[in-house]
């Protein structure tokens, strides 16, 4: 897959910034809030002086006012890890290689990585290509790292793959040592309960989960008519010969239920859910990616 994240695309995110909700515990100085007190200029709190502390932290004016010795503590601005958990299943190849959900996924992954790296955050990647075959990139803060990620993603196209984003979520949840922002991109072609379980595990461990539902309008509307052979992109034995116009209404109803189940479930556990129409222009999609939810 040829992909060139040209400046026309990347410049769209130049003025964007991402502020995660979670607080980083990274000791390195960065932009994001950290539970540690540090040398940031942002006031955190006053605390009584304890003997042996650095006397330079004493706030003499406050101490004189309150008639006790107080130490001013400042916030610690640290860096945050971001993990891109992508869906490498064959269903991401819909509707065609030139306009597939996977292509949009790679574009978004590249753009997100570019922005995060620009603001000093690190970005890693986890994707299950085949069953239990994962590709991972440890978080890096360099553009070369982003390039490497994008190049690897472009070298792959999901075909006959029975992988799942759930597997990737589980893979990284056992490996993350510090709170991170997990960017999950999937087309929700999996059991909602299993997906929510994987997402819930990440949330419980203090990670911020942002799930993006990549969808093509054809998947929602089922607009075909006549005698159609529906071929499963993942399993060959799941082909069905149908008249979709007879089933469209019921299909839309069930599809909405499926998506609502996932979004409500994620919302209840504090994860973010956003629907991304892969046919929309990037100018419309990117604000949705980085909006606070």
């Amino acid at each position, binding site marked *: 897959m040829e992909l060139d994240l040209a400046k026309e695309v990347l410049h769209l995110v130049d003025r964007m910034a991402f502020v995660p909700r979670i607080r980083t515990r990274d000791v390195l100085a960065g932009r994001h809030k950290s539970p540690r007190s540090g040398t940031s200029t942002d006031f955190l709190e006053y605390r009584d002086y304890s003997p042996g502390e650095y006397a330079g932290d004493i706030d003499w004016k406050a101490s004189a006012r309150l008639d006790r010795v107080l130490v001013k503590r400042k916030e610690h601005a640290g860096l945050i890890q971001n993990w891109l958990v992508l869906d490498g299943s064959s269903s991401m190849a819909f509707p065609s290689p030139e306009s597939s959900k996977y292509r949009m996924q790679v574009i978004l992954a590249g753009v997100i990585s570019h922005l995060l790296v620009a603001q000093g955050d690190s970005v890693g990647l986890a994707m299950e290509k085949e069953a239990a075959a994962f590709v991972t990139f440890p978080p890096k803060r360099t553009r070369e790292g982003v390039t490497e990620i994008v190049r690897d993603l472009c070298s792959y196209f999901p075909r006959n793959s029975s992988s799942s984003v759930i597997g990737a979520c589980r893979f990284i949840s056992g490996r993350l040592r510090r709170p991170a922002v997990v960017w999950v991109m999937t087309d929700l*072609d999996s059991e909602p309960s299993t997906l929510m379980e994987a997402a819930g595990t990440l949330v419980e461990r203090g990670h911020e989960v942002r799930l993006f539902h990549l969808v093509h309008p054809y998947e929602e509307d089922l*607009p075909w008519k006549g*005698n*159609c052979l*529906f071929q499963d992109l993942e399993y060959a034995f799941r082909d069905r*010969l149908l008249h979709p116009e007879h*089933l469209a209404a019921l299909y839309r109803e069930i599809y909405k239920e499926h998506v609502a189940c996932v979004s409500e479930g994620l919302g209840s556990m504090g994860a973010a859910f956003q629907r991304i129409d892969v046919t929309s222009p990037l100018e419309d999609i990117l604000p949705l990616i980085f909006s606070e939810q």
Partner: protein
Amino acid sequence: MSIEAPLFLLALPVVLLPFLIRWIRPPRPLSVAFSQMRILDKVLRRTVPMRRINPWLLYLIRMLAALVLVLLPLGIYLAAAGRGSGRAAVLFLVDDTFHARTRTEAGSSLWDCYRGIVSTRLDGLPLASSAALLGWSGRRLEWRGPSELKKALGQMPPTYGREDWLGVKQGIRALRRSRSQSRMELVLVSSGRAGEPSGLEQALMQLSEEDRLEMVSVGEKLLGNYSLRARVLPRKGGALVAGDISPPAPGVAASAKLVLRSPSGQTAQQQFEISAGKAAPIYWEVAGEGFAQGVLSLDLQDGLELDNSHYFTAEAGRELRVMLLDQKSSRERLKDAGYYLREGLKVLEERGVLNLDERDPRDWRGLLGAPADVAVLHDPPFLSDEEAAALLSFANSGGDVVLVAGPETDPETMDKRLGQALPAALKEIQKTDCRLAPEGEWGRRCPRMMATPFRLRWLFYRLAPGARVILSFQDGVPFWICVPLGGGRVHLISTPFQLAWSDAVVVGDFPRFLQEMVSALSSPLRRGRGAIAIRMGEPFPRDFSSVRALMGPQPADLDEAGAAPGLYRCVLQDGAEVVLPCNFDPGVEEARSPIGEPRKKGGLSAPPSGRIRLDAACAVIFGLMLLAEAGYLLAKRSVPLS
């Protein structure tokens, strides 16, 4: 074996239609690589029971179509088997003429006896048989079941008409065609009288070798029933009563007395002996002035009253008696000058329009007193005094003399011999390109004759006093002139009927043209008499000489309920219209006119059966089902997503 619904064979190619559609455009579904099969499966799990209905419905339709395919030939086979069991269709040929009204000694009529015979036969037929009835008068009841025919026969009275053997022949042919019958059983029901033997024999010649003929006659003793056809013709010094009396049945001989009463009260009588089974001709010359306007009555001397059950005098007019005086000019037929006229008159004789008598024009003695109404002299080269005198005497006696001028006609001789009796003097033969003027009925009945130009014609001059132009050319030159002479008339026609003078003799309606001429000859030129009602059985009043034509009840005669009021019209020879009691049932079909075509009103043919044939219905349903399936297959073609 035959197929009862042969039109079904046209539906058979429809069976191939679904195969053709599948072969030409096999249904290829659109392949869609879909990502959300998980959800689609959930949908299918919910809708599977509904999806399974449609294929079953299609399967049911196919089974029904297969069932029809099996039942239809079976039905054909069973029908053929039933037909082959030996019961052919039965056709009853029944005498329904006026003879059927003859009473029997037992008190019933012959018609009741005929009905009884036919009903007994119908009761013995299987229910699946077909039977029809053809009357000697030509009317018929079409093929139907035995019980239906018996019911229709019960409502059918006999006619007052005579035998129509041509109608019988046509009826047999039509009934055979309508049923596609290869074999018929014919039952001839009559009183045993043969009628006109040649007529019945000719009618029965329509039967094939496979048909079976059975003759059934009534053994009852019959009482009197006669038919009188007569007219009174004026003759010099008296009158001529001509006609015949037809007896009712064979084995019945009787005496009849004709009485002619003049206006002055004089009476003349003539006894006639009627042989069994034969019509007695009447040719009674009555001497005495005034009898030409006399009243004719019939006395059968059997003590029976003149009522409608026994006697009636209403009859169709007899044929015009035409005497053709033409010497054959060549032995070769087509070169004979009078060939076309002779052949045309023969055609009319065959049709019953006239009675043709060919004579040598030099036999002038035979012309005197000849039993003829019209004497046609065709292109006479010479006319002797005796011949001219005979012709004039014939005309004065009430006959019509028709002189057809031709290439051999000598104007001087004509003028000299006939003088003022000639309607106009002959001038010369002129070349022309003119057509006849299509006036009135001439143009309507003989359009081709009117449209054919003549090459040569005689020019007339010096019209005789009282002469009238009956027909002329489009430029006004007379074609046919007539002048009254005594009791008759003398006619002059300007062209002979030869090919050299006009192609009109070879156009299709030349015989019709001659018929119109004969019709004009048989009627007087004056019109305008009022209608007079006459009761059946009463003698004709004085002013009537004979009945020329009978017409059935006209629409204007019917009452509000559509029934004839008991009267019907007659047009007499002198042009008067006579309203006679109508004993025909409303809607009776036929009254024959000697001039022109038989007039038919209504009909006694039974309406076609309303039974729907099961095999035809199956064929229609099967064809519709196949078309429906073909349409369904066509509608299932895939439509690519645009």
